[in-house]
């Protein structure tokens, strides 16, 4: 054999080995693609006709490879999408952009629909001509359904919340309308009763016998009493409109909770607390905590300019057997001249520049304590602290 022959035969051997290796690699790749069962992988020719079909595609779309190869891939789309030219448009887009990802409904062989996530990649030859498309699809119907379920669920939830809110608003509006009517229309006849009684008394004057005069006085007193009752009823209806849940309340425990909630406002402050054992009372613990929080935050607020704030909380019995609780501070205090304004809504004894506030806190305290049948009052001297008192029914029952 010549040297040239040897080289040739070696080249042929190499070529054969290379081809065998390539064939082996292609076979491995084909087996891999065909074996993938969760991914539908198929190839299209440039016109969109199916040229290959793997196991996953079979599983997802329901066609055997022999019945689908050679058919146009638009058979996976629903009629309306074919009508609007979606299959062709997707290939055009893939060709122009290189690849596209999309999600949408597709149709199985048996006509059932499923939600697909598809990746279409354009395959080109060395000259850049479109040789076909590879199509990788995944059935994500379950995920889609879960999403849809979640969406519908939250939509239903929102609708229900909206309905409830509307019901509550309607109930509130009715209540508003009710107290408005009470305020306007119930007071007027009372005014007329007392007014005409007074006019009658004036007109008859001395001619009235003592009994008639007494009757007129009783009528007048009753009308005035009812006027007061109406006013109190209105004030009560304006208080938080929740039902009261009256139980035995351990005030010291409630006080601890209130102080914990106020902790952020006490940061970087030196405050001495002097807290006595408080008697158990009858009341709504949620509302009474609001009372304590308001009174404590007031004490904290008006002692804030002091280096050594002292807040005392204690109790004493009153003559009616009720428990009187007091919150005493050594803060800036207030002028007793304005004590009547103290518990009024939007009434403030300090300017906002000095101490911030809305003027609702003490009005709320009063409303809640009144709802409990108790009283609130206060004592103070300017720059010598303030003491707020409220009375509540002592709890007699066992724990």
């Amino acid at each position, binding site marked *: 054999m010549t040297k040239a022959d040897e080289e040739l035969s070696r080249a042929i051997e190499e070529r054969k080995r290379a081809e065998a290796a390539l064939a082996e690699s292609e076979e491995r790749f084909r087996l891999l693609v065909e074996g993938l069962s969760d991914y539908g992988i198929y190839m299209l020719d440039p016109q969109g006709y199916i040229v290959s079909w793997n196991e996953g595609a079979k599983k997802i779309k329901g066609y055997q490879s022999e019945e689908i190869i050679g058919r146009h891939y638009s058979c996976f789309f629903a009629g309306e999408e074919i009508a609007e030219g979606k299959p062709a448009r997707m290939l055009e887009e893939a060709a122009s952009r290189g690849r596209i990802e999309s999600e949408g409904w597709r149709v199985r062989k048996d006509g059932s629909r499923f939600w697909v996530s598809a990746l279409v990649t354009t395959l080109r030859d060395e000259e850049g001509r479109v040789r076909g498309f590879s199509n990788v699809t995944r059935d994500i119907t379950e995920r889609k359904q879960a999403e849809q379920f979640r969406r519908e669920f939250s939509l239903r939830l929102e609708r229900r919340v909206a309905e409830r809110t509307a019901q509550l608003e309607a109930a509130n509006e009715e209540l508003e309308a009710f*107290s*408005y009517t009470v*305020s*306007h*229309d119930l*007071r*007027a006849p*009372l*005014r*007329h009763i*007392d*007014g*005409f*009684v*007074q*006019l009658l008394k004036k007109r008859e004057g001395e001619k009235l016998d003592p009994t008639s005069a007494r009757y007129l006085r009783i009528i*007048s007193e009753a*009308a*005035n009493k*009812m*006027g*007061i009752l109406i*006013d109190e009823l*209105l004030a009560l209806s304006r208080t938080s409109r929740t039902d009261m849940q009256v139980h035995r309340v351990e005030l010291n425990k409630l006080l601890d909770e209130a102080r914990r909630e106020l902790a952020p406002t006490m940061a970087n402050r030196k405050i001495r607390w002097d807290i006595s054992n408080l008697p158990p009372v009858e009341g709504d613990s949620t509302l009474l905590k609001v009372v304590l929080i308001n009174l404590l935050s007031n004490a904290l607020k008006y002692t804030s300019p002091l280096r050594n704030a002292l807040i005392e909380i204690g109790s004493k019995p009153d003559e009616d057997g009720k428990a009187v609780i007091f919150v005493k501070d050594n803060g800036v205090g207030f002028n007793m001249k304005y004590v009547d304004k103290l518990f009024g*809504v939007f009434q403030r004894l300090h300017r906002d520049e000095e101490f911030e506030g809305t003027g609702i806190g003490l009005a709320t305290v009063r409303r809640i304590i009144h709802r409990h049948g108790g009283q609130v009052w206060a004592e103070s001297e300017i720059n010598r602290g303030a003491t707020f008192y409220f009375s509540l029914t002592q709890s007699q029952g066992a724990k």
Partner: protein
Amino acid sequence: METKRILLVEDNLNDVELTLAALEEHRLSNRVDIVRDGVEAMDYLYRRGAYTDRADSDPVVILLDLKMPRMDGLEMLRRIKKDQELKQIPVVMLTSSREEQDVVESYELGVNSYVVKPVAFNDFVDVVKHLGLFWALINEPPPDAPQKI
């Protein structure tokens, strides 16, 4: 001498009678013109309909009820305060309502005073006395108030 008139806008006849009685205690009842709702009151102020020939000058004060048929007190107040000439006339809400919304809305619309009628007639007499004396006798009306006689 020109009489200072008080315009009472009140639909309830009992209230009209009681207000007049209270004003009478202070010899002011003969100065009162009475209209029964907002529509009639606007006719009075604009000299329309039954009030075309109203001779007196504009009232020194309008005592206004809140709840009235046809046009209520708040609506009337809104119209008065929008009118360049009428807005000069002091308006006092004289009402049963203590409702915050009414008070707030009245002040927002520019009411000059808001008075809740007390249930006790003697208190009412006092209130009316202060109102009547203040607005009818003490208060100096704005100098540019229209004087149409």
